[in-house]
């Protein structure tokens, strides 16, 4: 049978197939951060083994870092200890560590592509579910647990049962104000939060081929939010152009050899997927979520669905609306907003800041809104300054913070208070995700910008 993009990459990484068991996959790149790695390193010590290929592992601090005054010692002793532990473990095992203050520091899924750690056709894992981001380059990239982090550190391999294959095709032209984030939230709203569980997704169609690499990363990043192990897009000229000459990408003859392989990475015409979806770009509008999982999204102009139109348990649905303080049938436009968060591995890249700035330019931050604008990395931060975006932000009354995961998961002090509403460009609207009792509305950077300047949920298209 003809191979899909996914088959080609997966099959070429099989070291051994366990009889009646999983495949043993070789991992080309492993990224670690401070939260899901310490117990894995302890495991190595208990077993008395070292890291097999330290040059294939990269460490950064992101989940648990402050986003102001990064030059000062971290106040929270637990957070400080976790960072120190990663620093020590990295030093001990010879792993590159891009800690707080390091010029390459940033969110693991932002810095990976920035420095060319992410390349097409590679297998990439990290103890973080949004590792699917790297699939934008045609890599097989997925999140793993800490036992698996230990597995990769000690053996550079992972045992996995091959997932089923799904392809999501979207063709047509996206409307005004419809961003890659909206495309992803639209797909998840159609498939539900578990609709792709057990599958690895390929995104195909001109909507994805015409997206920038940043946009593709946003889409692949959110694959996990419909339960998929990962999502990927076939590499093309745009991909090769993006990665060329980055620090860790192959150079010279190695580049040529890699290109020979990369150019074979696409799904054959007659390859078969276990499940396939087709959508038309015209169906997609700017999206926003109203509930407590990323599948609970609607076009921003719509009303909150009635319970009887929803698949699944009515009590779970009602629990979710109660948590949000919403009622079925209500319109989202005009709902109050207390916080706006621009950032995360989903939407913390330079394009996201450009899009945000375009909307707020010449307008003022609404006085009722607290805005946290957090670049995904130092490189993004530098670009924001160099491109003059910082001046635009300041002019409109916004401040810029320092890089990190920040309020996406609120492990640091960037916590949305109980009961408050946050329009967030991040990836999860789970109960308490942005702080105990916080209420999250997931949206694109421009919907976030519209909320930031109007102080309520606003269709960004009226601001163009």
């Amino acid at each position, binding site marked *: 049978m003809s191979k899909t993009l996914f088959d080609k990459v997966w099959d070429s990484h099989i*070291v051994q197939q*366990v*009889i*009646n*068991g*999983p495949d*043993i996959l*070789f991992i*080309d*790149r492993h990224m670690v951060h401070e*939260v*899901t790695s*310490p117990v894995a390193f*302890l495991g190595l010590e208990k*077993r008395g*083994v070292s890291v097999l*290929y330290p040059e294939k592992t990269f460490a950064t601090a992101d989940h*648990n870092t402050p986003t102001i005054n990064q030059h000062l010692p971290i106040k*929270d002793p*637990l*957070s400080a*200890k*976790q960072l120190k*532990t990663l620093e020590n473990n990295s030093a001990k095992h010879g792993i590159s560590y891009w800690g707080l203050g390091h010029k390459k520091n940033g969110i693991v899924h932002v810095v990976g592509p920035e420095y060319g750690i992410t390349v097409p056709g590679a297998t990439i894992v990290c103890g*973080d*579910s949004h590792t699917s981001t790297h699939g934008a380059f045609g890599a097989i990239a997925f999140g*793993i*647990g*800490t*036992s*698996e982090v*230990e*597995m990769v550190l*000690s*053996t550079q391999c992972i*045992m*996995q049962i091959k*997932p089923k294959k799904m392809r999501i095709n979207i063709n047509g032209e996206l409307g005004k104000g419809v961003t890659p984030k909206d495309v992803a939230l639209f797909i998840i709203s159609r498939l539900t*939060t*578990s609709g792709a*569980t057990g599958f690895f997704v390929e995104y195909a169609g001109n909507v994805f081929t015409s997206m920038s690499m940043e946009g593709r990363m946003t889409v692949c990043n959110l694959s996990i939010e419909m*339960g998929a*192990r990962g999502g990927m897009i076939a590499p093309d000229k745009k991909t090769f152009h993006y990665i060329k000459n980055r620090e860790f990408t*192959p150079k010279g003859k*190695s580049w040529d*050899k*890699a290109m020979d*392989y990369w150019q074979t990475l696409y799904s054959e015409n007659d390859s078969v997927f276990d499940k396939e979806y087709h959508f038309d770009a015209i169906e997609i509008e700017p999206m926003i979520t109203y509930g407590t*999982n990323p599948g609970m999204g609607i076009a921003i102009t719509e009303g909150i669905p009635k319970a009887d139109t929803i698949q*699944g*348990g009515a*009590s*779970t649905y009602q629990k979710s609306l109660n948590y949000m303080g919403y009622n079925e049938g209500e319109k989202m436009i005009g709902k109050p907003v207390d916080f706006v968060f621009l950032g995360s591995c989903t939407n913390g890249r330079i394009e996201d800041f450009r899009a945000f700035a375009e909307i707020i330019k010449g307008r003022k931050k609404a006085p009722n809104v607290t805005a946290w604008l957090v670049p995904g990395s130092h490189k993004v931060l530098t670009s924001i300054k160099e491109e003059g975006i910082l001046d635009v932000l300041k002019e409109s009354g916004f401040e810029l913070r320092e890089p990190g995961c920040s309020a996406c998961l*609120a*492990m640091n002090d960037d916590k949305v208070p109980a009961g408050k509403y946050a329009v967030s460009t991040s990836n*999860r609207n*789970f*109960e*308490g995700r942005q702080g*105990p009792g916080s209420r999250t509305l997931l949206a694109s950077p421009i919907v976030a910008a519209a909320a930031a300047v109007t102080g309520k949920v606003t269709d960004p298209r009226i601001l163009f």
Partner: protein
Amino acid sequence: MAYEKFNILKSKGVPLQIENVDTDQIIPARFLKATKRVGFGDNLFRDWRYNQDNSPKKDFVLNNSLYSGKILIGGRNFGSGSSREHAAWAIYDYGFRCVVSSFFADIFRNNCLNIGVLPVQVSVDFLSKIFKEIDNDSNSELEVNLKEQKISIIKLRESESFDINPYKKNNMLNGYDDIDYLINIKEQIRIFADNTFL
């Protein structure tokens, strides 16, 4: 990390009749700052279990003395979201050895299997039967037989078989772990690595 072997588990069940229970609920991010795997059970379902002043929420199932046991029963799509293995650790540390649901998220399922918590996926009908039976009689016991891949509601004499990968099953029955397996084929891995070019 080695864990207890799993063979037959006979226990009461704790019913959590909610769908899409994500790992942020199982263990919120602010409790992930530890550098050792200890004490996670104390914060299992922290924000559903405790008020902000740390007083227990009376209506949450873990605070209801009627329910106890080593089997947690959850609604559809259990364990979605974050890959944090801490969620599986918290479940294990609290004292559960098995989670039953009609559907599991992938990463959570893998994490459970890697640390010795058995995820048992049953049909929607059988899950409703379990919830109903525990609702009728909180002392009613379940039996999970890994070798036979069978889960039973003992009192009702009703059972259903469940799937598990044969390799993973063998691991759980014997307390084996993937890393030991991989370390034993290190030479094969090295040969493979020598031929990679990325």
